[in-house]
């Protein structure tokens, strides 16, 4: 039984670009990076620049005499289509275009590569909890125990290919007893899934070129000088002789050629936030255009989350600005969401309310992933707004009335009659059992009557009250037809917000049934509420 699977995405930098622009998959694509010409000729150190073709002429760094610094665009990666036309990494862009006039070039953007690398890891993580990051475009998966869950090794391989495709990457999978055997198999395979039968690793690796082991240059040169070209030839060498001549490095190379791994498996754990980013070659100063870019980024991010059966419960948007600064926004999600449209609506509404201060040159969205409970509601469970609809309508309402004016009220433990707080609207998903319902007064008083409601006057309105003794007889020139009271209450006498009041229920000559209150600390009267 195969123990490891290796998920390999060839020409990874190009695959990362194709993931962002799927239309490029059918085109010969070259990924270019800009090098300082003088540095390339060895007169200076290497240039740290990773800017794209749009920055081929570095306007910011002019030389001392005012002329632009000499730059040269080099091909750092090419997809299979471009390679079929003779384009290879290391060529200049001009040379590549001479070989392939239809060549499409894109700048190397580290964020694309990093996002794609994380996407591949997360796709593998959806299949097995134990994976190892083998580098860009390379993931090792521990498949022990998966056969009971998924099936035989080819089925596991197909699942991995499917997960990688779900995040926009075309992968090949090799399955073998060791990581090296799985990797070499995946690299040499022609089909998407290749399985090396147990005990056949040496045979399977025998024809592979020595370069697939990524040995140190000195060791590779020595072996080449000996005439060793393939792993089979290396495996056929006597171990004692290799140990005597090459030391531990030779023995390790021999083990690898036999398909044996001795390096420990280093499990990869996902970061707390999953980020997807996009650098822009132009400046965006319109929210409509920015929404299009955000949608592309969110589509990639949500595909990653969906492939791992996760949803986002918190979102952070970070915009790089042309001014050199950043504009960061945290977007609250009422529910864990994995759909692009409601998230996009929320982000756009938030950016409408808090627009960036300068044109945007980079977009990054990171999401905090959580595992949601799948499954439908109970048969007798009443319908409720779908999370994506609710998130969207709450965001629109928050933009309309303000986030503070929206939510579920919650009573505060206080003797103040109007003490409450607002909580985010999050109705319980299932009806509470009767004995678990929040305590409260009985809704149906004895006799089957219903509760009389009051309409609050916020803030309580100051009124002029005439009284005989302590009983009010006139409220703002309206005669009091009947009244009941006083009902005294006080609280927070230990604090600066001490209050004391007496309440009267009064019927006024215009028919209103009100509650008026006298502040016992100031003597002022207030219209507190209206019974209705």
């Amino acid at each position, binding site marked *: 039984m195969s123990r490891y699977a290796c998920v390999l995405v060839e020409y990874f930098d190009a695959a990362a670009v194709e993931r962002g622009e799927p239309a490029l998959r059918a085109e010969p694509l070259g990924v270019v990076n800009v090098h300082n010409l003088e540095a390339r000729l060895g007169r200076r150190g290497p240039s740290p620049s990773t800017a794209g073709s749009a920055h081929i002429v570095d306007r910011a760094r002019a030389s001392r005499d005012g002329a632009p610094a000499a730059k040269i665009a080099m091909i750092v990666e090419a997809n299979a289509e471009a390679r079929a036309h003779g384009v290879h990494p290391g060529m200049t862009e001009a040379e590549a275009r001479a070989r392939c006039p239809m060549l499409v070039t894109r700048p190397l953007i580290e964020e694309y590569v990093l996002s794609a690398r994380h996407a591949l890891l997360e796709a593998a993580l959806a299949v097995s909890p134990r994976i190892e990051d083998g580098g860009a475009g390379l993931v090792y998966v521990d498949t022990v125990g998966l056969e009971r869950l998924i099936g035989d090794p080819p089925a596991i391989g197909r699942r991995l290919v499917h997960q990688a495709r779900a995040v926009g990457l075309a992968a090949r999978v090799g399955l073998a007893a060791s990581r090296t055997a799985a990797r070499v198999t995946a690299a040499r395979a022609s089909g998407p899934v290749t399985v090396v039968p147990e005990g056949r690793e040496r045979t399977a690796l025998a024809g592979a070129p020595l370069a697939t082991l990524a040995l140190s240059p000195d060791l590779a040169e020595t072996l080449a000088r000996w005439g060793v070209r393939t792993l089979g030839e290396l495996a056929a060498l006597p171990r004692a002789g290799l140990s005597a001549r090459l030391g531990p490095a030779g023995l390790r190379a021999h083990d690898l050629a036999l398909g044996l791994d001795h390096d420990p498996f280093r499990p990869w754990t996902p970061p707390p936030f999953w980020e997807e980013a996009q650098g822009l070659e132009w400046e965006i100063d319109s929210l409509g255009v920015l929404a299009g870019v955000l949608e592309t980024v969110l589509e990639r991010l949500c595909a990653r989350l969906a492939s791992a059966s996760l949803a986002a419960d918190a979102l952070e948007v970070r915009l790089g600005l042309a001014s050199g600064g950043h504009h960061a926004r945290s977007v609250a999600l009422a529910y864990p969401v994995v759909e692009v449209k409601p998230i996009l609506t929320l982000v756009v509404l938030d950016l409408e309310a808090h627009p960036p201060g300068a044109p945007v040159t980079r977009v990054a969205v990171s999401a905090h992933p959580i595992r949601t409970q799948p499954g439908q509601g109970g048969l007798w*469970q*009443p*319908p*409720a*707004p*779908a999370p994506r*609809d*609710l998130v*969207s*309508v709450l965001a*629109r*309402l928050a933009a*309309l*009335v303000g986030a503070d*004016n*929206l*939510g*579920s*009220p*919650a*009573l505060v433990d206080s003797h103040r009659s*109007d003490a*409450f707080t607002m*909580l985010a609207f*999050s*109705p*319980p998903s*299932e009806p*509470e059992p009767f004995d678990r*319902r*929040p305590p*409260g*007064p009985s*809704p*149906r008083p004895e*006799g*089957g*009557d*219903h*509760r*009389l*409601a*009051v*309409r*609050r*006057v*916020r803030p309580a309105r100051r009124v002029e009250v005439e009284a005989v003794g302590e009983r009010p007889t006139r409220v703002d020139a309206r005669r009091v037809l*009947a*009244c*009941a*009271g006083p*009902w005294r209450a006080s609280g927070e006498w230990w604090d600066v917000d001490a209050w004391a009041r007496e309440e009267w*229920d009064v*019927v006024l000559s215009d*028919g*209103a*049934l009100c509650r008026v209150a006298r502040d016992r600390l100031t003597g002022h009267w207030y219209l507190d509420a*209206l*019974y*209705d």
Partner: protein
Amino acid sequence: MGESVAPIFSSRTSAGEAPAQRRPAARTPSRGEITEIVGRLSSGRTSYLLACLADVVGQGETAALVDADETFDPRSAAQAGIDLRRLLWVRCGSDRGVALRAADMLVRCPGFALVALDLGERVPRLPPTLSFRLKFAVRRTDVALLIVGRRRLTGSSAALALETSREGIEWTGPGPVPTRLARVRTRTRVLRSPGEEPGDSPPLWWTA
């Protein structure tokens, strides 16, 4: 469509009333329809609104209240039996235009059993086109829209229109001088209901 959103309130008919003339003591809004409750201040319309909300929320469903004047009292609602966690309260800062837009958004969100719009004393004029727009929106999403105010808003678009009026007040207290409001009796009059003649319903008692 037309399904009752909540059980009809406990019916309290007068003893001497003939069975043929009996009406339910209280009518509840129907899903997919617009219901209006109008009345003067202290006529019991807000108590009626809270009772409808309590019936809906009590069945585990979700409701929303668009409160134009921010007069909603959470303590009264809790006393009426409303699980406040299932109630979305939208405060509109006395802006009727905002309240109407908020209600329009909510009735377009499927899943809410009841959307209540409390317009208070100042009810704006609503063009008939907007009334029909609301009517078709609630039909499509099968939401019950309940509008409470001083006068009617949506005209013929409402399937049910009720008017509340106060009939009496009872006071209570340990001595001869009352110290507290005990309960209020109100009556509901059907102003508009399909297939039904306008008329009064038996009185309802509301305990303070």
